[in-house]
């Protein structure tokens, strides 16, 4: 479904990786590994179309993502470093707005269920801890089960053990339902044994 061909990425004059190619099919899990600054986030941003690769192309079902634009955006969920939450809104309002903007159907019960499954308290985001913000961001996954491609940047950062294993369970369910997941991580997770690894440390 997702095909990366001969990707090269250069940031501020330094080549992070070059000649990177891989395919991602349904039910596949890929972990992007590498030390800090090796270009893991850049690769994820290239895959979701936020960053243009210096060389090469990313194709979705055979069509370059540049040409698909929003059509491709609708097929993916990207959870980046920043939680993309508004401090002045509640997690519920944030999630509801995020769903509408992503063109997802957003029933109120489903949103509330997603937030309570991740144990997010109903307070303005400003009052939430780092881990709770992360949970609120990840709650988007539960309402995006229909979206085939998940691109997750450090999904387990700042999470406690219970939330991390719940996140792994959610990812596992998505894979079983035929989805594909690409993620980066520093903490070792149980998922890692199932994942194909793309190591950016060895060029």
């Amino acid at each position, binding site marked *: 479904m997702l095909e990366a061909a001969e990707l090269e990425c250069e940031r501020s004059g330094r080549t992070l990786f070059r000649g990177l190619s891989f395919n991602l099919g349904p039910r596949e899990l890929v972990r992007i590994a590498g030390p800090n600054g090796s270009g893991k986030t850049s690769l994820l941003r290239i895959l*979701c*179309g*936020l*960053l*243009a690769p210096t060389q090469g192309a990313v194709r979705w079902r055979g069509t370059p993502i540049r040409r698909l*634009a*929003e059509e491709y*955006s*609708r097929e*993916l969920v*990207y959870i*980046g*470093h*920043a*939680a*993309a*939450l*508004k*401090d*002045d*809104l509640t997690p519920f*309002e944030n999630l509801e*707005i*995020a769903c*509408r*903007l*992503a*063109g997802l159907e957003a029933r109120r019960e489903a949103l509330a269920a997603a937030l309570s499954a991740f144990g997010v308290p109903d307070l303005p985001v400003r009052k939430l801890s780092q881990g709770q913000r992360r949970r609120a961001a990840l709650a988007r996954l539960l309402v995006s089960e229909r979206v085939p491609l998940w691109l997750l940047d450090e999904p387990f950062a700042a999470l406690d053990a219970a939330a991390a294993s719940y996140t792994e369970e959610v990812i596992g369910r998505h894979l079983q339902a035929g989805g594909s997941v690409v993620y980066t991580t520093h903490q070792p997770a149980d998922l890692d044994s199932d994942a194909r690894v793309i190591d950016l440390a060895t060029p």
Partner: protein
Amino acid sequence: MMLSVVRTLVRRDLLLAMRRRSDAATALLFFIIVASLFPLGVGAEPNQLRAIGPGVIWVAALLSTMLSLGRLFAADYADGTLEQLALGAAPLGVVVAAKALAHWLVAGLPLVVIAPVIALQYDLERPLYGVLMLSLLLGTPVLSLIGAIGAALTLGLRGGGVLISLLVLPLYVPVLILGAGSVAMAAAGLAPSGQLLLLGALLVVSAAFAPWAVAVAVRIGLE
């Protein structure tokens, strides 16, 4: 789909403005204060005030719009929401047009409404109030749209606020000339329709083209 994205985004930005009323109030108060300082500084000579009134009110509107431009994309950029907007279901051009509309509702429309009160201080004649309000109604959305280009180009830069002013103020000059000119024209007893129509044309052109320029600038800013 696109309409629902526009509606959601405008509603979100208005909600955020409501939760942070002081930000929106700052721009409006700035407008009122700047426009009120001139009669105090220049002196209470009615003919002089009448002559400078339209120009001063328009310049104050320009500066007040500038003041709120810095926040147009900066907050969304900082918390990662802008990335998500760029990956949304609607084209980015539509998204930024919705943001410019919300900016105008918060920063532009209040100026239009409060303008007659300011005009009172300059002893403008009653029939001119309508022309002043109409010129602001046509002109302030152009300020938001053009300003959005500057705000998007300075995304993520340090000292972006000053840079926005340098980028955007020269582009505001035609709006200023036409806006203040229409009121001056009406004050001289001539029909202001020429200036107002040109302002309307500026609005149509900027509404059609500015969002796409903003979208390109935002994409570059996000890289």
